[in-house]
């Protein structure tokens, strides 16, 4: 059969971010996908050698506007390891709460975008309506909606008083029941199922082979979550790793929905257990040494490497972000798919191009 090459992107209605794929088609079926990257490449890692390591924190937070909080936190954890300081317990709990709020807003954002990709606009609007409430909480506690800048090397810059925390938890019940109704549509509605069920299958072997991370991996039946390493206060809190054996787009949806409810559970526990005390210990001097940090972002595991040589600037800063790892799985699931499913499949890995290209 004759082959056609259809260029997809960088500007495409479904994708908020630029990614370019050359899709080799046979009729309506994709036989190969050839990606090209670099439309959002800025060169941030290089900037580490030009900025003071304290100022560089603000650059790291802008690797990605969605996981901004977690990037900042991981950078601070790395620096704290180099300095050899242990931050106060209260700061660890606060970090955990903010991390889970970021996960909530990121997963809700993804649910909305997914609904938009398969043409269910009302679901998109509803998911984002609930998301705004989470953003309100982030704004109340940090002052920013997306870029919060509350992390410092040595702790956090803002505290949340008990009235505020209780206020958040009080809103959770209503939000959870709203979300149950909403997510039921994703999981049981027949039109949604028709678009997601057995679409983009990534088997367990392939997930291992291609190094999938995060919900993409967990939806292929692999039980692994970096949060179980116990960074911040995760070691003291109890939560389940959500997995599914469906291996398809629906399973990925299921896993992320499950994680939304686990996040509520984690924040509730953290609010119950949070100790009183300091939130910051001053750290002075220049860092010298190396650190590697792994954190579980909404999209999967991110790995950071930092090397400091005793000057004001870091010698090397490197990030491997979850989308970078998941792109290989995407290129695996695209061949064989219908052309109309391509935007949807790209979304199922929850791509964050600005992380990947930095």
């Amino acid at each position: 059969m004759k082959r056609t090459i259809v260029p997809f992107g960088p500007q495409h209605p479904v994708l908020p971010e630029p990614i370019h794929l050359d899709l080799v088609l046979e009729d309506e079926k994709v036989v190969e996908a050839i990606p090209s990257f670099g439309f959002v490449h800025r060169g941030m890692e290089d900037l580490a050698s030009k900025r003071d390591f304290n100022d560089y924190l603000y650059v790291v937070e802008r690797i990605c506007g969605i996981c901004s909080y977690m990037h900042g936190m991981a950078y601070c954890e790395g620096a704290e390891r180099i300095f050899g300081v242990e931050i106060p317990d209260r700061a660890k709990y606060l970090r955990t709460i903010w991390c889970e709020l970021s996960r909530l807003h990121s997963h809700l954002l993804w649910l909305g975008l997914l609904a938009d990709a398969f043409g269910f606009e009302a679901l998109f609007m509803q998911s984002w309506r609930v998301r705004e409430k989470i953003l309100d909480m982030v704004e109340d506690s940090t002052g920013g909606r997306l870029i919060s800048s509350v992390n410092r090397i040595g702790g956090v810059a803002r505290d949340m008083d008990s009235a505020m925390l209780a206020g958040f938890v009080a809103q959770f019940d209503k939000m959870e029941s709203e979300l149950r109704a909403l997510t039921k549509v994703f999981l049981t509605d027949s039109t949604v199922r028709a678009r997601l069920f057995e679409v983009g299958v990534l088997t367990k072997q392939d997930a291992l082979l291609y190094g999938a991370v995060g919900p993409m991996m967990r939806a292929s039946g692999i039980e692994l979550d970096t949060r179980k390493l116990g960074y911040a206060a995760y070691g003291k809190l109890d939560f389940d790793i959500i997995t599914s054996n469906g291996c398809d787009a629906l399973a990925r949806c299921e896993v992320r929905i499950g994680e939304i409810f686990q996040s509520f559970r984690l924040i509730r526990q953290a609010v119950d257990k949070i100790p009183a005390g300091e939130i910051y210990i001053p750290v002075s001097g220049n860092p010298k040494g190396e650190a590697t940090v792994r954190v579980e972002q909404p999209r999967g595991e991110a790995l950071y490497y930092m090397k400091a040589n005793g000057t004001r600037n870091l010698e090397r800063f490197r990030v491997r972000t979850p989308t970078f790892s998941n792109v290989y799985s995407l290129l695996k699931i695209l061949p064989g798919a219908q052309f109309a499913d391509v935007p949807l499949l790209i979304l199922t890995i929850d791509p964050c191009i600005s992380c990947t290209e930095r």
Partner: protein
Amino acid sequence: MPTISKSPWMMHYDGSSCNGCDIEVLACLTPLYDIERFGVINTGDPRQADILLITGGVNYHNESVVKQIYEQMPTPKVVVAVGICACSGGVFKDCYNIKGGVDTTIPVDIYVPGCAARPESIIDGVLQAVELLARKQTEAESATAAEGEAQ
């Protein structure tokens, strides 16, 4: 009043933003902010767009893409730079791959500050763009009318 001011179509392109401003642009479309109540509709097709929203600065790789999108849009058109990155390069200004703000590549009419720009200010920017668009259309119409009389 020119008809265009009642139903302008807007398009969004991500230059090299960190996603923060992108997501806020999308948030403008959702129930809480709902930019559609002003008659503005989001489209993915530059050939139908009147207002171009760009988030993030221009880098050496997407320069040609930004130019191409701008040229594909019908006149009159208005460009809105959303966020500090799009206005001047922002925190990424010193990065080796960043050329600078959007105005280093195409003419920008309206600058929306903020990092990330808040949905309220994005809506304000778009509404100013609508006014400007109407003015540009009126000017274009009177110019053609004057030409017609001269003949």
